[in-house]
């Protein structure tokens, strides 16, 4: 079965600390990869996506993620977090077969940044 695993459920950091959120997926075929963010009281928003090409992708607000195919991983990073990054982060994959675009989400990671 297809699944997405996010290793950290709750992360607490101080401002300016570096961030890395782990994401691994289980699927035998080719997938598109995404990170979504949900700020308090807001709807889900796309942070970044990977379809093909350079495995290091850059998104909004200084976030980046690296796709490592051999490890089935798509970890999210940010060199220096801000208080405004406090949110819930979701990794998601979309199998290319079937071309539906449906997303399979991880359980989410709550990031709390202390000022």
């Amino acid at each position, binding site marked *: 079965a297809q699944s997405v695993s996010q290793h950290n459920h709750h992360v607490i950091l101080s401002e300016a600390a570096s961030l890395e959120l782990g994401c691994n997926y289980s699927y035998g075929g080719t997938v*598109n990869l995404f990170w979504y963010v949900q700020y308090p009281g*807001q*709807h*889900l*928003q*796309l942070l970044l*996506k990977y*379809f093909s090409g350079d495995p290091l992708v850059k998104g909004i607000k200084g976030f980046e993620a690296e796709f490592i195919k051999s490890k089935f991983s798509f970890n999210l990073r940010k060199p220096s977090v801000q208080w405004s990054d406090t949110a819930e982060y*979701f990794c*998601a994959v979309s199998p290319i077969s*079937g*071309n*539906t*675009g*449906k*997303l*399979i*989400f*991880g*359980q*989410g990671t709550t990031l709390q940044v202390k000022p």
Partner: protein
Amino acid sequence: GAGVSQSPSNKVTEKGKDVELRCDPISGHTALYWYRQSLGQGLEFLIYFQGNSAPDKSGLPSDRFSAERTGGSVSTLTIQRTQQEDSAVYLCASSGGGRQPQHFGDGTRLSIL
């Protein structure tokens, strides 16, 4: 508005009642998705509509759940004979199809008493 609109934003109902949740996608978006966000289960795919094609219902948890999309635009998710485990936030998303990103609504928070 320019975004995906869902109504109601909150719904409280008694166990056994039927509920209808509505989604207005972004104008011109051909693809529409329903997801459910619940404690312990995370975000789960429910159903997908694309144009006039048959919907992908593979994520619907039981036959009490159904959805339709009229005129290729507005969609309604119906839950019959609600159970307490149906309590969750139901999210709708739309996209231009293919590799276009999905845009999410604010969701409907459903509470079954």
